[in-house]
């Protein structure tokens, strides 16, 4: 209670004059600027806080503070060099690290500065991200928590998609019936504007009180019109970006082996959620698919010796089997995955699987291997060698105890990807959602081919699969800036035939399409290319030989510095104005890796003093305030 009183006194002396969030999206590349202006009304100096949350897929590109007419700007530096600069601050007990994990999707950036009496401060944070198409749409997530009423509050988003917008939806977790009409949405063929700007009275939680209703996520979801043949290619200022997700492709049947960890640590909620998810996933299997179930602890137990066609009868039988899975024993990931690989290979050789179909393994596990082969490098090697590039491995890491990095590398080495499943009451849905993302392959071994003499520095252009609802993005630099068009080819393996299309990419005239707004776009396409290249280099720095890893890291660092992106290899340093003892104290903005986020979650204080963490999943979260309820069973 004392803390609350102190905060409220402090807040009364600090007035937040404005909070604005300005987001511009061009060709899925989102550039967001968050600005906050606060005034210290007290007659003594006060510490003023700036806390914002940004998507974890975003890179901070700029941060500045304006105090008494002087602007303090952030500089992106190599992490090691930045460390030296703030070592002094750390040793004197000051907090130097500013970015922290915040939930599943966000990172929190916090700054505090001392502001003189009756002065104001302006904080400006800029971040950028490439929106990913998932389950048929892109999502812009803006988290706003102003904590108090704000004189001028505005969220403004402009979306420019030359392909044309097929739909745009906007909603917020804090929208009441009164606030709903304040969301203004204007959607034209190729651009959309969404804004939300409640007055102080409209923000108020109740008449006369200081609490604000504005607390939560403002979410915009949209999709673009899908282009036939080669997809959509934009050439702007010497860089090109190619989006490929053609409509109406038939799905390719899949052969999927579910490898399910049922070791002791899965006991309780995790096991129950796994059973529920499996039952739902099995129900969603297409009749053309083949599937197998392997459960493992220290022993490996297959439902059947080979893959089974997903007929209604077989699925019903499998669902009963899935319901019977119980936790028990230790964890032998190595043998379980190898058995899954072996089963797929055996069935392929015996021609029991359709010739044109995709083979995949979905591994669900919550912990470190501690039975059979437990050296993770050896497991990765065994799996890579067994798979031999012939199937995809998708790994789902359940909870905070799992070594995510181990699964991440193993998936990437085998044409798949890893995903964390957060322990919470919606874990069943997380598992289902992941399955849905990879459930419908449309094309296999997709190659996007560009003329060698016209482009260079092209991002990854080979993809093992294209899934329904997703999108392939490739960007590159044109070697000839005067080039007006070039030939593009897309090759892949479809359901019945090989897929092969050709098309011509033309320079896009933004002046014609958006005559009033061309100044906005600037170097968007170049930055999109840089963002994508850095992301892929960071991925490459985890796999391959030592030399390959070092080269990828060095290149990613160089580009992060060149384009001023705060990535896991760089830090942004802002030197705060002198403190009362006459010393400058640097502020540091970092980028977390998935492992660091996981570590932070492990360290989060829990509601018990000792015991096994896997017994305590997080409760359902609807609203930040507590709920007290009574209901029937």
């Amino acid at each position, binding site marked *: 209670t004392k803390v609350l009183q102190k905060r409220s006194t402090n807040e009364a002396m600090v007035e937040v004059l404005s909070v604005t969030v300005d987001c511009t999206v061009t060709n899925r590349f989102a550039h967001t600027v968050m600005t906050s202006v606060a005034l210290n009304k007290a007659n003594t100096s006060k510490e003023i806080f700036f806390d914002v949350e940004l998507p974890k897929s975003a890179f901070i590109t700029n941060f500045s503070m304006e105090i008494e007419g002087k602007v303090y700007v952030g500089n992106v530096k190599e992490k090691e060099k930045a460390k030296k600069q703030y070592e002094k601050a750390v040793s004197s007990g000051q907090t130097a690290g500013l970015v922290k994990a915040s939930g599943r999707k966000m990172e929190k950036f916090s700054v505090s500065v001392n502001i003189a009496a009756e002065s104001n401060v302006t904080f400006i944070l800029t971040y950028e991200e490439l929106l990913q198409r998932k389950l048929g749409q892109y999502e812009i997530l803006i988290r706003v928590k102003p904590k108090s009423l704000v004189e001028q509050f505005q969220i403004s988003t402009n979306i420019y998609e030359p392909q044309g917008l097929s739909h745009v939806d906007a909603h917020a977790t804090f929208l009441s019936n009164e606030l709903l009409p304040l969301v203004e949405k204007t959607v034209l063929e190729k651009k959309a504007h969404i804004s939300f700007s409640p007055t102080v009275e409209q923000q108020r939680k109740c*008449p006369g009180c200081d609490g604000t209703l504005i607390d939560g996520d403002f979410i915009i979801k949209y999709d673009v019109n899908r282009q036939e043949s080669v997809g959509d290619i934009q050439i702007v200022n010497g860089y090109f970006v190619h989006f490929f997700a053609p409509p109406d492709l038939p799905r390719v049947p899949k052969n999927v082996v579910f490898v399910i960890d049922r070791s002791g640590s899965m006991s309780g909620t995790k096991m129950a959620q796994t059973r529920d998810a499996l039952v739902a996933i099995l129900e969603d299997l297409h009749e053309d698919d083949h599937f197998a179930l392997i459960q493992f602890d220290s022993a490996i137990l297959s439902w059947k010796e080979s893959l089974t066609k997903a007929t209604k009868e077989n699925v019903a039988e499998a669902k009963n089997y899935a319901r019977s899975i119980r*936790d028990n024993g230790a964890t032998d990931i190595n043998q379980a995955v190898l058995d899954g690989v072996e089963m797929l290979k055996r069935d392929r050789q015996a021609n029991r699987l359709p010739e044109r179909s995709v083979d995949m393994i979905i591994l669900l596990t919550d912990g470190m291997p501690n039975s059979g082969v437990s050296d993770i490098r050896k497991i990765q090697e065994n799996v890579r060698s067994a798979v031999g590039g012939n199937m995809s491995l998708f790994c789902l890491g359940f909870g905070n105890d799992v070594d995510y990095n181990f699964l991440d590398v193993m998936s990437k080495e085998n044409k798949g990807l890893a995903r964390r499943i957060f322990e919470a009451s919606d874990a069943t849905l997380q598992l289902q959602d992941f399955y849905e993302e990879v459930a419908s392959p449309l094309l296999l071994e997709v190659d996007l081919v560009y003329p060698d003499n016209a482009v260079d520095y092209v991002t990854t252009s080979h993809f093992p699969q294209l899934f329904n609802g997703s999108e392939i993005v490739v960007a590159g630099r044109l070697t000839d800036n005067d080039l007006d068009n070039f030939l593009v080819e897309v090759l892949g393996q479809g359901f019945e035939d090989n897929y092969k299309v050709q098309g011509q990419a033309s320079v896009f005239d933004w002046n014609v399409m958006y005559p009033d707004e061309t100044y906005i776009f600037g170097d968007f396409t170049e930055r999109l290319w840089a963002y994508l290249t850095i992301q892929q280099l960071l991925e490459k720095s985890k796999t391959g030989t030592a030399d390959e890893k070092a080269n990828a890291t060095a290149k990613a660092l160089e580009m992060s510095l060149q384009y001023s992106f705060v990535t896991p290899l760089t830090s942004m340093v802002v030197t705060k104005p002198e403190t009362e003892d006459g010393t400058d104290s640097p502020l540091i903005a970092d980028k977390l890796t998935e492992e660091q986020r996981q570590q932070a979650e492990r360290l989060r204080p829990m509601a018990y003093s000792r015991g*096994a963490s896997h017994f305590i999943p997080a409760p359902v979260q609807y609203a*930040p305030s507590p709920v*007290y*309820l*009574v209901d029937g069973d």
Partner: protein
Amino acid sequence: PHFIIELPGRNDSLCFNINNAPGTIFNLVRDPEAGVFVNGQIIGDKKIPPDGKINTYFWRFGIVHQTLGVSLLVTTQYISVSQDGKDAKLLWTDTGSLKGPNVDVVVTKDGSLTVTLKDSVKFVILLHKVWKKHPYHRDYLGFYTLDTHLLSPSVHGLLGQFYHGIEYEVTDLRPGESPEKPDATMFAKGHQLNVTRGWQRDFRRDVKNGDNVPCWFIHNNGSGLIDGAAADYVVSSLF
């Protein structure tokens, strides 16, 4: 009926059941300072089920805000709102709303009732519809308090006593009767309690199936967690 006390600050929840003879009226919220009272009456199944276990649920709530002169009677059939001597009645079978100077009421057809009492409290009552010809069960209600920050520090009642938080500590996690539900020792309000990790359902998002809320379950009608005993909260009338 089951009670859930969600404590987002601790990333945890507490839960307990309170049962008594059908017809019993319990006080859920009592804030004489703010003039807010919520009482609820439980009802039993139509007849004793084969397993002999009598289930009870809330089927009527009486809500009074003395200062604002507002009272509401919420049953499984209808909602009656009275303000300054004027009465209005809403049926669960229709979507409707009432906006008064001191109270806002919004009903969604056969679903939920949201009541906002000016400057004091906001709550939602859910209607659980049961098949009319069900041999045992019948319609019942759930009561969810969403915003209580303007109630006084002296607020009490089976739910109200938790509105300003609760201090507790859980130690000694150990295997319980069921492998999925470990036991532990909880220290709360000066008592040492044997608790079990379990789940209870929050039906706000999905009124049919509910969402599982993991929680520490306190046995014996919440003994040791609630002040006094459940019998202390029995009152003689809804208003």
